[in-house]
């Protein structure tokens, strides 16, 4: 267990030495001065110095140097001798064999000095057990992001679909990836199909879809969509600069003077569960919520068998179908038509109401035709109070009627017989 004071001093020394070395890329730094067991190696970034053999009796040891598994140098050194190799371009590494010692596994005492290199760029600087074969090397993930849109010219109120994908075209896995897709001014996020949040990874060669959403244009103009960005590191924990996508351009056309009539037809019933022969009061409400008047408005009610619809005089029956016909229906106009439904048979029913109308959209010469339909909720008709009477076989009525008739006849006959 390391004592806190000691830990503090070590940290302080390290910080100080860092500060001292910061400015001088060319300064020589001894990155290691200790012994390495035969068969182990020492890794500095992507370079590994393997101690392959230690000959104690000959006071010598052999070294192999690899850059990402590619051998760059091998040499047999006597104690006191050294060798050098180039490190990441301009840097130099100087390895001096200082001692050899025997044991179960012989060891080589080495000093490794790095020069002409920015020490801060060292991300790996350590013994590798088993040598270069067991070293892990770091690469450069490269995230290629693309932002595409399904159409680049739309009108105000129109919708554009945005798709953002990413592909790692680098040689290392991107880890701790955080994507950022900024909100788009002048557009409303209309609907999101695919989205993404939190940290993720992107394997080498992997490509995935990050975002799919629809934007609704609110203002005319030409807009460059903000790029989607990604922050990421490689497997060695090295951070890389933000990757960003392209920025597609959308032109939102100033909308033409399109107008439309929009009729809302609602059917309201005062109740949905009745006994047979009880009346249901209904209302059909028509409202034009659009910005153009409608013409030739037809609303027809499909009355199911077992029900009868008795409408006000505004509802005419055209070939058996109760129908409302309105020659024209102005903007924001609202009208109600009431009717009475008389259920005649027990059952579950719905009313379906169909409407159609035409309007001039202000651009096209031809009238626009709109039709739609709606269905009410279920109407439950149960047995009436006295229905059981009607369910009786005919003799149930006939017999008492006959008896009453006979009695009445008898009384009349007797009355006549005794009437003086």
């Amino acid at each position: 267990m390391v004592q806190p004071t000691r830990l503090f001093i070590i940290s302080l020394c390290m910080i100080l030495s860092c500060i001292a070395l910061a400015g001088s890329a060319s300064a020589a730094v001894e990155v290691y001065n200790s012994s390495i067991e035969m068969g182990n190696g020492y890794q500095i970034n992507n370079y590994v110095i393997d101690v392959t053999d230690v000959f104690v009796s000959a006071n010598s040891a052999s070294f192999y140097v690899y850059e990402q598994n590619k051998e760059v140098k091998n040499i047999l050194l006597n104690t006191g001798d050294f060798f050098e190799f180039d490190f990441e371009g301009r840097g130099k590494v100087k390895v001096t064999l200082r001692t050899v010692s025997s044991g179960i596994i012989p060891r080589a005492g080495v000093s490794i000095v790095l020069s002409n290199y920015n020490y801060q760029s060292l991300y790996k600087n350590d013994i590798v057990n088993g040598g270069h074969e067991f070293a892990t090397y770091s690469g450069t993930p490269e995230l290629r992001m693309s932002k595409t849109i399904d159409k680049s010219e739309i009108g105000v109120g129109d919708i554009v679909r945005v798709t953002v994908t990413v592909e790692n075209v680098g040689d290392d896995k991107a880890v701790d990836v955080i994507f950022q897709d900024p909100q788009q001014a002048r557009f409303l996020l209309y609907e999101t199909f695919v989205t993404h949040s939190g940290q993720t990874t992107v394997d080498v060669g992997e490509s995935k879809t990050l975002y799919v959403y629809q934007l609704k244009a609110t203002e005319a103009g030409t807009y460059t969509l903000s790029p989607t960005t990604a922050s990421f590191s490689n497997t060695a924990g090295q951070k890389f600069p933000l990757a960003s996508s392209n920025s597609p351009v959308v032109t939102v056309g100033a909308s033409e003077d399109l107008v439309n009539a929009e009729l809302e037809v609602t059917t309201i019933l005062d109740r949905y569960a009745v006994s047979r022969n009880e009346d249901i009061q209904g209302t059909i409400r028509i409202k034009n919520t659009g910005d153009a008047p409608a013409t030739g408005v037809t609303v027809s009610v499909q009355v199911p068998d077992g029900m009868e619809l008795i409408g006000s005089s505004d509802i005419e029956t055209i070939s058996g179908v109760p129908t409302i016909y309105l020659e024209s229906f102005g903007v924001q106009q609202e009208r109600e038509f009431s009717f009475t439904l008389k259920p005649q048979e027990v059952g579950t029913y719905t009313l379906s109401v169909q409407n159609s109308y035409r309007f001039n959209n202000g651009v096209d010469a031809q009238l626009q035709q709109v039709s739609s339909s709606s269905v009410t909720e279920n109407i439950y008709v149960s047995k009436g109070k006295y229905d059981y009477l009607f369910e009786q076989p005919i003799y149930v009525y006939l017999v008492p009627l006959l008896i009453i008739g006979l009695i009445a006849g008898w009384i009349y006959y007797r009355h006549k017989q005794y009437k003086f």
Partner: protein
Amino acid sequence: MLNILIVGNGQCGNRILDAINRESFGKKSRFAKYLSQQKYKSNVQTIAINTAVNDLKEMKFTKAKDRIHIPHLHGVGANRNVGKHVFEDNKTHIMRQIEERGDFDVCFVITSASGGTGSSFTPMLIKEMKSKYDYPVYSIVVLPFREEGTLYLQNAAFCLRDIRESGSDGIILADNQFLKQMGGNVESAYNGINDMIARRILFLLDALDSEMMMVTDLGDFKTVMNGGAGLATIGFYEAGADIPVRSAIQKALSPSGLLFSSDVYEEASRAMIIIRGDRERLSIDEISTEVEKLSSAVGHVFKGIIVRDGELPQVLAVLTLESASELENLYSVAVDAIKHERDKKERVSTIKEVDKAFSQIDGMDPSY
């Protein structure tokens, strides 16, 4: 099965006839005629005759076709002479009605003795019938309350004589005076008396047409009615649960059981006693004792027993009278009444003198 004709003359006759018809429905309800059928054992025909249409209208249980109205302005009053004229004028019409009903085994004519219509029609009708038909015709005659007035007493006296002379096969007397113990107002007393009479008649009809254990029949009835002075009455008693049949017989023969007050052991000449009821209740010994007691006093007594399971003992006695002290009383009162009426008539003719005073101003006019 016997064919029986019952005729009710005048208001009293009509009402008693209606009571018989109602009683025959077996129920007291006003609606009996809608609920049941008449339970005559015999073929019973009824005819009501009256000059007063209102009396006929009041009847409820007699068929309309059985009610014969003899039109005469406001009836005949209590004037028997007017009544006789009206009958004479309508004789063929009345007789045709009876003729249409066919032949009968026996006929009863019911009337009050003291009214106008009944008391004058009955003797003449019986006379007509007797000259035409062979069947016996008995009259059931209701005597007036003694306090009803001299006119009624006088009518009763003459009526009874006329009926005896008409050839009637017997007169069954019913005396309002002795039946008024029913109490209540006049109307309810009449109804009570009528019911009593009706029940007795129905009982009698039932007995005459029954398969009796010990038989009495129409022949016996005729024999009984032949006896005595042609006057008869009927006694009746229905025994309660704990009254032995012996007492029931005694009660039927006592003045309270009779339609016309009489000491039967003294005045009866022939009798017929019909006892009806549950077998258990009809002790032959008791019946024999009582019947023997009566026959030792009066002569022959016909005895009939009708067994009806579950019925309380009922006793009906038909008695012909040798003498009728009560009738003698009535006649002596009636004689006074006749004298009284005659005096009054004379007085009225002297009062007519008053008219002479008025005649003095005949043809004159007052001058002012």
